[in-house]
């Protein structure tokens, strides 16, 4: 409404004045009431960008057999399910349905089966390269899975994993070459060596802080490198120890040999994944999820012996790393010094950082990426390592938890942005926002809020000095249309925080109070001001309500 219209000398006359009605003004200067439909049209008008509303359907819902919706497969003889499935009823059709909550076992099975049959699809021109790369991938993925147990599950930042593998490989190769040990002893001896080394390395881990320990283990790796490369017994002259016993027999055809060299490490990878599953997914893993870094004190107070759990995992993983070292020696019939170099540790860390530290799938994917770059694209030359470094830097700079953390990070970012948009569009007392609306079960409430908002917008336009003056003169009785509309709205307010008058004596004074809205709870006094007459008090309440309306 324009100012001119508001100031027009419109005078409202009481239609009941002819009958000499009691109460109420006979006539009062007021305003013309705008058409209530105008605010509806304004609200309906297309003037804001439309936002997509609702939730994406993340899960495929499978139909279930209606008679036995809770029937699931179990791993014999345990009570565990192969898949985490939730049974539910469709809210519209009331049909029984099921939802696979954790689909990772399916993806793992697909990927592992693919790796198992991959040699069938290798092109002939690259067959040997790919088989060799597959063998390297298997061994390094197994090492990284064990390493991620130490780094992620046990949160011990040890960089000495390759030192354990290398030492076990060197010692078992030495035993195999000099004492003629057959290949099947080597992983077992490696296991024992890994346990011993793990015990030695674990001792400082209990005392030292994470990063002191990381730097110390980096030094230990260098120590092993220098010790083995300068020691004559371990082949300082020939660049490593070669010629030990191996499980790949010379009597087989070259084709069978390379296939055996592919499937041996594949089985090793399966074994290490099983180890990961049995440590991280069971009691020890749960204990340590309870005691993440910096919350150890809380976990300890809850009775969790996290130190023991960490050292146990460290020892078991070191044993597994030693086993892998022994397998390494049995696979390559020896070992070179390259396993100890700083670059190997760097590449290993790159593998973990790309996939995300602390997840088996991260370790395997990172290994796949790095080995593919390093061994398959060999004709690219030194630029390969450059690219690995660039991918690693990218992963560390932009991804909080490596590749497999992207989903979580993206969701967090989207929620943040959503909150920002929401706050930029929200008004105090406004209608429900589209995003919020999907979360409100009672849709009537949304419509009520929406209608209420429109009504308040409309009523705000009616508040003017003339109307207030009219009410001050006669709070009761017939009023002009504008004032009447306001009063009708105010009377309809819900009981909680509704204003009322408290009379102190038989003839006043009056005070404004507000109901608590709950049975048995006394109303609160709104202000200390006392009104002498009831008319003044009525007007005081009216003014407060007008004030609240304009504030909303």
């Amino acid at each position, binding site marked *: 409404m324009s100012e001119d219209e508001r100031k027009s000398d419109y005078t409202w006359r009481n239609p009941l004045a002819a009958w000499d009605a009691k109460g109420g003004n006979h006539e009062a200067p007021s305003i013309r009431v705008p058409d209530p439909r105008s605010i509806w049209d304004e609200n309906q008008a297309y003037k804001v960008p439309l936002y997509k509303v609702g939730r994406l359907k993340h899960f495929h819902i499978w139909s279930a057999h209606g008679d036995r919706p809770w029937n699931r497969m179990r791993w014999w003889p345990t009570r565990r399910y192969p898949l985490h499935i939730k049974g539910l009823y469709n809210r519209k059709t009331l049909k029984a349905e099921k939802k696979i909550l954790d689909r990772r076992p399916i993806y793992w099975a697909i990927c592992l089966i693919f790796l198992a049959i991959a040699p069938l699809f290798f092109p002939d021109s690259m067959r040997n390269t790919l088989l060799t790369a597959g063998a390297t991938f298997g061994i390094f993925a197994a090492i990284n899975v064990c390493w991620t147990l130490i780094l992620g599950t046990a949160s011990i930042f040890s960089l000495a994993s390759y030192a354990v593998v290398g030492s076990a490989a060197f010692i078992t190769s030495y035993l195999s070459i000099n004492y003629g040990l057959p290949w099947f002893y080597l992983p077992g001896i490696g296991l024992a060596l890994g346990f011993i080394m793990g015990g030695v390395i674990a001792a400082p881990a209990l005392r030292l802080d994470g990063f*002191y320990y990381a730097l110390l283990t980096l030094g230990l790796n260098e120590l092993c490198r220098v010790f083995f490369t300068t020691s004559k017994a371990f082949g300082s002259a020939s660049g490593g120890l070669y010629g030990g016993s191996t499980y790949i027999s010379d009597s087989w055809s070259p084709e069978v040999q390379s296939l055996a060299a592919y499937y041996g490490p594949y089985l090793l990878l399966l074994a290490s994944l099983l180890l990961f599953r049995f440590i991280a997914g069971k009691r020890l893993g749960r204990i340590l999820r309870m005691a993440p870094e910096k919350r150890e004190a809380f976990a300890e107070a809850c009775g969790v012996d996290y130190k023991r759990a960490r050292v146990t995992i460290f020892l078991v993983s070191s044993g597994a790393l030693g086993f892998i070292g022994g397998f390494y020696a049995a696979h390559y019939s020896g070992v070179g010094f390259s396993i100890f170099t700083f670059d190997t540790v760097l590449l290993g860390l790159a593998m973990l950082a790309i996939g995300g530290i602390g997840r088996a799938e991260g370790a395997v994917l990172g290994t796949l990426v790095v080995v593919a770059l390093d061994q398959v694209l060999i004709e690219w030359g030194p630029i390969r390592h450059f690219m690995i470094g660039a991918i690693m830097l990218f992963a560390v700079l932009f991804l909080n938890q490596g590749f497999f953390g992207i989903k979580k990070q993206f969701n967090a970012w989207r929620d943040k942005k959503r909150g920002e948009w929401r706050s930029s569009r929200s008004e105090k007392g406004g209608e429900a926002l589209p995003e919020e609306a999907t979360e409100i079960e009672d849709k009537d409430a949304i419509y009520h809020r929406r209608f209420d908002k429109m009504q308040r917008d409309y009523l705000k336009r009616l508040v003017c000095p003339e109307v207030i003056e009219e009410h001050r003169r006669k709070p009761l009785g017939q009023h002009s249309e504008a004032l009447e509309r306001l009063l009708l709205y105010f009377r309809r307010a819900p009981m909680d925080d509704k204003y009322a008058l408290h009379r102190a004596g038989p003839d006043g004074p009056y005070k404004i109070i507000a109901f608590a809205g709950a049975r048995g709870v006394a109303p609160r006094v709104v202000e200390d001001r006392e009104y002498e007459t009831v008319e003044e008090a009525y007007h005081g309440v009216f003014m407060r309500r007008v004030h609240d309306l304009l504030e909303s």
Partner: protein
Amino acid sequence: MDISFILVNAVVVACIYGLVAVAISITWSSLGLINLGYGFVFSFAGFGAYLFDRMVSDSPILVASAGILTGAVGGLIICLLVFIPLHDKPNFTTRGMIATLAISLIGSQALLMHFGPRPKNLPELFGYWQVKLGDVVVTSDKIGVVVCSIVMLAVVVFWMRGSRRGLEIRAMMMNPHAASIVGIGVRSTGFYVMAMTGAMAGLAAVLLSQTYYIGPFSGITPLIKGVSIALLGGLGSVQGAVIAAVILGFTEALTSRFLGGQYVLMTQFLLIITILIIRPRGISGLLDKAREQ
């Protein structure tokens, strides 16, 4: 081998590695960044000095300054690529460490691609003269290395004590959060710290090239030695790093005199582990006032 000769060598090597250790220590305590990219900065500065020597001038002071300057530039590169984007992200310490390792990988490969694997050497910066101290003959390069590193360390310590920037860096060491509240820019301090520590690594590279060669991967050993010294001395403590450098230098000298060269790292690490088990934050690292991040 003569014990005094070994001792002199130990002091010389300790001086060079001590520079790297102090650089690592200052970076950790003021920025909370475990910078394992000094290996790259080291080689980068070495190649910078080498290129300057080949292309511009072979004046010893200019070559050394070129090395120091390229070292500072290397430090700034790490600051720009790692510290600035990461310092306010979750898990900064782990990610920072991995990112500096990535820089080290990328940088070494880039140097390898550009300069090839053949080692390069710098001219003799300190001339050819020698001094007799009692019955020990000390050559010019050794005296030069010791003097240069002590001068550099003294300059750094005085700068940190006496200048406005040094005050900012020390404030960051004490409490980074409070420092940023009173108006000390975390990022600008990061630039000073990384440039200064990079310059120290650059000087170390120039000095070490008097004894060894410059190669794309020649920074790894100084890095690991520096890390060990910084660990033993207590991350964040300059005095600790100096003491640790001397202790490790003497251990090295005594081990190679009485046990043999290949046991040097073993005795050193046994010593480090023993001291760290007794004092988990190093010789002069404070137990309860360690940087929490």
